[in-house]
């Protein structure tokens, strides 16, 4: 029998869900909606009424604040509205979608000694009399997401919940040997393989040569392994590039055999060669995350991933599993690193985008943003990993392709930094069970999104279960320290197929698919193999340790199962019961893919003067407008929802200053509570610069990430960086050319600053196509390169923050301001176009970073802030309102190579800082910069004052800005104070 337990707020308690729905509905034009909500459970089993009552009373309901209605599904009392004239609408997870609360309730009910066979959670919305169309619109836009949820309007008439029907084994082969090019392409698309013609031909020819057809599982394995997502074939492929080849823009050509290897990786190789014995990189671009030295006993690892496509379809689940996935990267690096902090960067269209002009198939950006933020929150917080750094970036070109970057830093003992599976080891799966969820995630993420993506690839969208992953983390760290396995990797894109395929690449593996624990009956052998169900890790376990590992896992209720064995055959062989369902030579699987050869061209737009010139604009108004622009405005609404202090290592928080609300340049954590040594995390990203020249966008991004680290006290000689390219369709020569141009900058800057890239990831094909007025249209995202930086500080006690500390202290600008308003926020808020994009002088940047670091180390600097979006004006305003002290600033000075005061205030030239320095150390501070080689430009531009105003004067003492701290802070806090 199927029972329903509905839980309502008790009388006098707020109905929070209802208030939220009403507010969201108002945005959609439903004004004055009056609704009520309940949440509930469907319980299936041979249950007595008193059993269900006991489950409700002792487990499901909190009698102080809630009341229940308990009855068999379909009973009249369940459809009794809480208030007159309301009608029920039910929202439930679709069958097979992860339902963590139901899972936990299941085991808690077992603990009550009651036998329930299945549970599903539900939400019930009581709506007033509305037209069917209005109900449908509310359901689709606010109450449910069709990718993962089903909606039942009116009473529920379910009879049962049980999932799955038994599976009858049927070995499937695919006739490929006689297909022509067009037919191969058709097969690639219809089978959701998303392979290119040349690759399909290679596969066809291989099977011709061995004189048989492939089985479906072989084809799927090849498609996963050769997917853009898993192999990065475009960027690691052969590219003929034509365009500007250096910082100055000299035109030329470059032929790459492997573009990534010859730019990004090559920079790291060059730095390591130069450092020789001082090399602090440990493992780069090899493992699931990059590894560098931390202290005598520990290394630290860092990885940033994207989860864009799933987040576009189901923002909560996409972001949820995005953070869940990247946490498994450090855990699957070396012999397993303990995660110590997270960073999250999101790009959306503006949240007030007009709802009625959304293309079909696109979720409203406000809904996407709320979903993404809460998805990361609910997973990161539950994992007990502080989210300490991040950024939000808004541009309407992210409408169809929001970007979700999630990163995790981990720490591991030095002697646990490498693992390698041994022949004869068991292949052991631990953690979550395998279901039908996440089928085709790897191949799907490598395809362009269309308005039909939702119905095509709904299976690629998932919800995570953080607690399962936390339980896996807990046992893995114990097993690591006891030496119970010889290698570990995560099950990410491609599922077992990728994990086992990669681990066994150099050995060979046989897998017995029927042994993998499944969530429900009915999965085919292929589904088991390619499912991307979350929260699974694969270990390579020597036979002598299997019993100990198994006991350890069982003692903490974690499932561990032998699913195969690494065998020295050089082959991947897949079994289902007594049948061999697939057999592939490892070398064909990993090296058989034909090289991708592409053309790339780049021609940056010719530089135009800034138009109309910004000279007539009011400086104060522009400053307030920039502070209120979404990219600059306070992100406190997001930051506070993330636990940024769990693990208790927090030394510089994301929010600093008198009222704990100023914007910190970077976060600092102590990963080891018994040590003073700290890790510094920051990022840099400037998509608007990319519209002008992607070289300077990339160089500026690196400069920004590094200077953010240096501003809080990181040692510039030990900063590791990561690249994450999110780009449009790289089959277009211009789009790929823009990327190559950026990669050239990555090489130049990394080598010049001695900041090695240690890991990276790319997400291509971020274009959204849809039909409008009978025409196919397409929106490509702006070229977006996220640079994440991980620095180190000898002792967190040396760190500084950006808030002004004491009136009377001097304010110095370090670094040169140039005429660089191209792509600036001044241009953005005043709707100006053209202008010169900010460039980096790498030698000057490096010298500046090192000199400033000395000043901070020697305790001369009371506060320090980098100059970025909005330039000098924004930086000084932020320092003032965060410290709640005023400032008097003179613009005139030799620190500028500029034409007008507008540039002095708002230009976004790189490698600049503001420093607050007490009078008595000023001479020493100045000497540090004067004596640098090359000499660093700096200027004493003003003073911290007791007043509560920011006053900036131009030529002849003319006041350009005179605004109260209250005005400035309000402008900055208001836009995203949701």
């Amino acid at each position, binding site marked *: 029998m199927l029972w329903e337990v509905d839980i309502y707020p008790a009388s006098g*308690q*707020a109905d*929070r869900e209802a*208030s*939220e729905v009403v507010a969201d509905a108002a945005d959609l034009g439903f004004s004055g909606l009056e609704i009520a909500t309940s949440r509930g459970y469907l319980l299936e089993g041979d249950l007595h009424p008193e059993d269900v009552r006991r489950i409700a*009373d*002792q*487990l*499901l309901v*909190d*009698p*102080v*604040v809630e009341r229940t209605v308990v009855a068999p599904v379909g009973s009249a009392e369940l459809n009794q509205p809480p208030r007159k004239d309301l009608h029920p609408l039910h929202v439930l997870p679709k069958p097979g979608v992860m339902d*963590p*609360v139901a*899972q*936990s*309730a299941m*085991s*808690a009910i077992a*603990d*009550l000694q009651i036998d329930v066979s299945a549970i599903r959670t539900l939400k019930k919305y009581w709506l007033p009399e509305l037209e069917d169309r209005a109900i449908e619109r509310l359901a689709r836009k606010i109450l449910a997401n069709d990718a993962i949820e089903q909606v039942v309007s009116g009473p529920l008439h379910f009879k049962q919940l049980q999932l799955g029907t038994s599976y009858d084994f049927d070995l499937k082969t695919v006739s490929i040997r006689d297909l022509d090019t067009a037919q191969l392409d058709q097969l690639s698309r219809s089978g959701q393989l998303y392979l290119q013609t040349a690759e399909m031909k290679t596969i066809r020819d291989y099977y011709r040569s061995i004189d048989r057809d492939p089985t479906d599982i072989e084809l799927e394995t090849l498609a996963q392994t050769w997917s853009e997502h898993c192999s990065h074939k475009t960027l690691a492929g052969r590219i003929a590039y034509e365009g500007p080849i250096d910082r100055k823009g000299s035109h030329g050509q470059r032929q790459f055999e492997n573009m990534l290897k010859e730019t990004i990786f090559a920079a790291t190789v060059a730095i390591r060669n130069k450092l020789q014995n001082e090399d602090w990189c440990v493992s780069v671009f090899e493992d699931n995350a990059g590894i560098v030295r931390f202290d005598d006993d520990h290394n630290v690892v860092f990885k940033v991933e994207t989860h864009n496509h799933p987040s576009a379809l189901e923002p909560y689940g996409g972001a949820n599993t995005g953070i869940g996935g990247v946490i498994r990267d450090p855990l699957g690096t070396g012999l397993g690193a303990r995660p110590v902090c997270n960073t999250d960067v999101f790009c959306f269209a503006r949240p007030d985008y007009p709802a009625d002009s959304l293309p079909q198939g696109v979720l409203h950006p406000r809904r996407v943003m709320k979903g993404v933020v809460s998805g990361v*929150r609910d997973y990161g*917080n*539950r*994992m*007990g990993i502080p989210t300490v750094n991040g950024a939000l970036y808004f541009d309407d070109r992210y409408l169809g392709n929001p970007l979700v970057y999630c990163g995790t830093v981990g720490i591991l003992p030095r002697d646990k930094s490498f693992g390698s599976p041994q022949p004869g080891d068991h292949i052991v799966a631990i953690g979550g069970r395998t279901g039908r969820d996440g089928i085709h995630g790897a191949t799907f993420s490598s395809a362009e999104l269309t308005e039909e993506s939702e119905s095509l690839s709904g299976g690629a969208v998932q919800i995570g*279960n*953080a*607690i399962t992953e*936390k*339980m896996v983390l*807990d046992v893995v760290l114990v097993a690591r320290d006891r030496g119970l396995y010889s290698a570990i990797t995560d099950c990410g894109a491609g599922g077992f197929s990728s994990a086992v395929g990669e681990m066994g690449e150099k050995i060979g593996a046989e897998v017995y698919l029927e042994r993998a624990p499944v969530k429900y009956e009915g999965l085919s052998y292929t589904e088991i193999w390619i499912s991307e169900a979350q929260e699974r890790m694969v270990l390579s376990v020597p036979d002598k340790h299997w019993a100990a590992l198994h006991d350890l896992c069982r*003692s*903490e*209720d974690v499932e561990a199962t032998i699913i195969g064995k690494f065998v020295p055959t050089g082959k991947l062989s897949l079994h289902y019961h007594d049948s061999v369902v697939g057999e592939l030579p490892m070398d064909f699987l990993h090296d058989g893919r034909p090289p991708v050869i592409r053309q790339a061209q780049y021609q940056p737009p010719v530089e135009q003067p800034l138009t109309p010139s910004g000279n007539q604009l009011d400086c104060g108004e522009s400053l307030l407008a920039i502070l209120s622009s979404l990219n600059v405005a306070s992100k406190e609404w997001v*930051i*506070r*929802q993330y*636990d*940024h*202090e*769990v*693990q*208790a290592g*927090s030394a*510089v*928080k994301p*929010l*600093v200053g*008198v009222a*704990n609300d100023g914007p910190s340049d970077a976060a600092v954590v*102590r990963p080891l*509570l*018994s040590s003073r040594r700290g890790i510094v995390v920051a990022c840099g990203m400037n998509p608007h610069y990319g519209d002008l020249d992607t070289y300077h966008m990339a160089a500026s991004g690196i400069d920004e990430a590094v200077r953010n680290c240096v501003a809080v006290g990181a040692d510039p000689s030990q900063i590791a960086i990561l690249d994450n390219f999110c780009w449009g369709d790289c089959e277009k020569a211009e789009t790929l050319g823009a990327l190559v141009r950026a990669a050239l900058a990555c090489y130049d800057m990394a080598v010049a600053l001695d900041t090695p890239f240690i890991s990276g990831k790319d997400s291509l094909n971020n274009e959204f196509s849809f039909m409008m007025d009978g025409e196919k249209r397409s929106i490509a995202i702006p070229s977006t390169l996220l640079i994440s930086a991980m620095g180190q500080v000898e002792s*967190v006690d040396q*760190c500084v*923050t950006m*808030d002004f*500390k004491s009136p009377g202290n001097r304010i110095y600008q370090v670094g040169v301001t140039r005429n660089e308003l191209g792509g600036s926020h001044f241009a953005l808020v005043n709707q100006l176009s053209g202008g010169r994009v900010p460039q980096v002088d790498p030698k000057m940047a490096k010298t500046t970073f090192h000199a400033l670091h000395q000043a901070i180390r020697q305790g001369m600097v009371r506060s320090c802030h980098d100059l970025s979006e909005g330039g000098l004006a924004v930086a000084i305003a932020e320092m003032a309102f965060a410290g709640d002290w005023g400032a008097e600033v003179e613009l005139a000075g030799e620190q500028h190579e500029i034409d007008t005061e507008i540039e002095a205030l708002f230009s976004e030239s790189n490698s600049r800082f503001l420093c607050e320095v007490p009078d008595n150390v000023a001479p020493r501070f100045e000497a540090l910069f004067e004596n640098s080689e090359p000499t660093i430009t700096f200027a004493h531009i003003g003073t911290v004052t007791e007043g509560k105003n920011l006053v900036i004067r131009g030529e002849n003492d003319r006041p350009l800005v005179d605004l109260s701290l209250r005005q400035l802070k309000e402008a900055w806090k208001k836009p995203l104070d949701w």
Partner: protein
Amino acid sequence: MSRPHALILRAPGTNCDRETAFALQTAGAETRILHVNRVLENQKDLDEFQILCLPGGFSYGDDVAAGRILGNQIRHHLAEAMYKFRDAGKLILGICNGFQVLIKSGLLIGSQDVSESNNMAGTLTWNDSGKFEDRWVHLETCGNKSPFLEGIEKMYLPVAHAEGKFVVKSPDRLDALATEGQLVLRYCDPFKSSEAPVTFPENPNGSVEATAGICDHTGRVLGLMPHPERYIDRTQHPRWTRGEGGAEGDGLAMFKNAVSYFS
């Protein structure tokens, strides 16, 4: 006297166990972190400890309700052992999720009777803001019922939770707790008179009487939403770079009190 032994009890989803153990070590205790399954298998394990701590996190995901599932496990399998532990003059501390667990197990202010689970005096429910929030709060102690808070008047500590609003079943239940001196820790606004109601964000969740922590009738069982283990070191203070906060964190005093209770 030898160092007291502290047990940090973890469950699936507990995530503040390491730093809580570190805080207790810093205060002078010997610590051990054990999975709740071990204690369920062998309740005698509790005998070797003087301090039992339920740390923060999301036990069992906080699925169903925060702290509910672990609270139920304790109510059904460990209640007797825990009362025995308390009645032997030992100390029990629940921080954040641990507080939610203590409340929902009935150990703190409820009934000892399993079948009486519906008769809870109060509970911890969703913040008025409706969401998880991490922020620092000022706290003041009331009375001297709990040895954990002895000699402490004020503390500045972070909270990080979604379900920390203390509400009671009825006003007389609240009066009874107040009369017994069990409402030992309150959120406060140091810049307002103590009579003025404490509102958001100083009262971060809307708790009745700005309640941040409660002890049982013996005073030896204490639960609180703020995280004392997150303010042990001076650099954990959000404004240490402004010279604020002491040489050691406010939270350490609570752990030192627990340790010195046994010396």
